[in-house]
């Protein structure tokens, strides 16, 4: 029977130049429930679909506020995300303590990128099994960064990761032009719609399974959960028919 000899550790390349352990870690991200992030000129928004393992259990946390100016959304192993977010919290506090400066988003993303990379290059370690979206506002404005288990990080205008996130990304690509000029409210609505796209047929976005994080220029990162979301969910999906109609039209134009 075929057995892959190159996937026992993350320090051995396959003859094709692949590192299987890293690729497997990336699969773990795809198992996580979907999260999306969008930036405008003034705001950065995260939206996440929370999952509960069973009816009786609570929902898994998907958005973690790190510092007053940013937070992260995770897809994949939540425990790995906690390790990373603890590190980010420490680094953020250290930056404020030693320089009286909120850490830059590019900087903090780079630091977790470096950490993740070192896990892929030493024997006996395993890559992080989690993808992150880092969103917030720093001295240079609103930003959204994507982090992958391989250590790859990149700045995004809009992004979705996790299970069935391709649908969300398709929505984001279609509406990309609108994001930059969007208001705070519109940006949240876009994020929720993108999230909705990734849901399977029988599922709905509810106050229980949705998380939204918003930060803006001179506006701190705030996590919205539960009843705080009622307004947005109603406003976004009330005009459901309208949007699907619009969507339908543009689909026709496209084809």
């Amino acid at each position, binding site marked *: 029977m075929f057995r892959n000899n190159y996937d026992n550790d993350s320090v051995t390349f396959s003859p094709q130049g692949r590192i299987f352990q890293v690729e497997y870690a990336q699969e773990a991200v795809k198992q996580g429930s979907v999260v999306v992030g969008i930036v405008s000129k003034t705001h950065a928004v995260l939206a996440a679909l929370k999952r509960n393992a069973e009816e009786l259990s609570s929902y898994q946390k998907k958005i973690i*506020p*790190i510092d*007053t100016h940013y937070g992260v959304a995770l897809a994949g192993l939540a425990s790995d995300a906690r390790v990373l977010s603890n590190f980010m*919290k420490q680094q953020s*506090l250290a930056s404020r*303590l030693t320089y009286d400066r909120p850490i830059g988003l590019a900087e903090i993303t780079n630091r977790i990128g470096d950490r993740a990379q070192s896990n892929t290059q030493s024997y006996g370690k395993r890559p992080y099994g989690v993808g992150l979206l880092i969103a917030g506002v720093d001295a240079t404005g609103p930003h959204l960064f994507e982090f992958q288990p391989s250590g790859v990080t990149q700045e995004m205008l809009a992004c979705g990761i996790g299970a069935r996130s391709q649908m969300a990304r398709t929505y984001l690509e279609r509406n990309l032009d609108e994001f930059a000029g969007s208001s705070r409210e519109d940006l949240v609505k876009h994020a929720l719609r993108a999230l909705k796209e990734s849901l399977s047929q029988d599922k709905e976005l509810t106050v229980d399974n949705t998380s939204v994080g918003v930060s803006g220029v001179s506006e*701190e990162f705030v996590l919205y959960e539960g009843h705080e979301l009622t307004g947005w969910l109603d406003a976004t999906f009330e005009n459901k028919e309208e949007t699907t109609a619009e969507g339908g039209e543009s689909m026709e134009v496209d084809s």
Partner: protein
Amino acid sequence: MASVFHPGPPSGTPKYSFAQQPNTASEGARQHSFYPYTDNGGSTLGIAGADFTIIAGDTRSTSGYSINTRYCPKVFRIGGPESRIALSVVGFAADGDALKERLDTILKMYKYQHGKTMSVAACAQRLSHILYGKRFFPYYVHAILGGLDEEGKGAVYSYDPVGSYEREQCRAGGAAASLIMPFLDNQVNYKNQCIPGRGTGHELRQRVQEPLPRKDVEQLVEDAFSSAVERHIEVGDGLQMIIITSKGIEEIYKPLKKD
């Protein structure tokens, strides 16, 4: 001319034209002569009410007879925007700042790890441990911590530099503590105040202490400081008050005499 009065130096040793003999290097290892503390003056004050707490401090910073600056706050909100805790530190300002930042970080980490803000009672005990942790190289400060307790009542905790602490109704700290504290004893806890018209001697009854309304406490704080300014050179310039209520935290600045 000085040499006339100078006793002749012993022969064979270097001659000095000055009255003072040279200090010679002592044998063996030299002692550290660096003293790591200084006193930056100023005074602080905390009063607990029924449903609020006021922590106040002047804003002058001194070294010796010099005024470093007229605005150097020593009362701080700590633990991030949701927290309802204020800390005042008076004494050696660098230690005060370091202490404030340590407690602030601890409160923020607590919020991050537990998803809720720390209670004042917990924070008060933690502060005591931090101070005692440096028992043999203390933070040279008199700290006063204020907030609202679990029942929503005003809480003031005061500390010595090595962590002994106690919850109190009110406390003054710093340079003018000895001037302000007796005033507070009398006006907040009604010490030496008797119920009028009950006769003399054994008939006398101590006036019963009851929580003061906020307006009265604010006035007391202002009076305490404007009086301290008159009698203590290290107190003055500005009065900073942090008022904690269940609705949030207010900050008030009022000028004091700058002389």
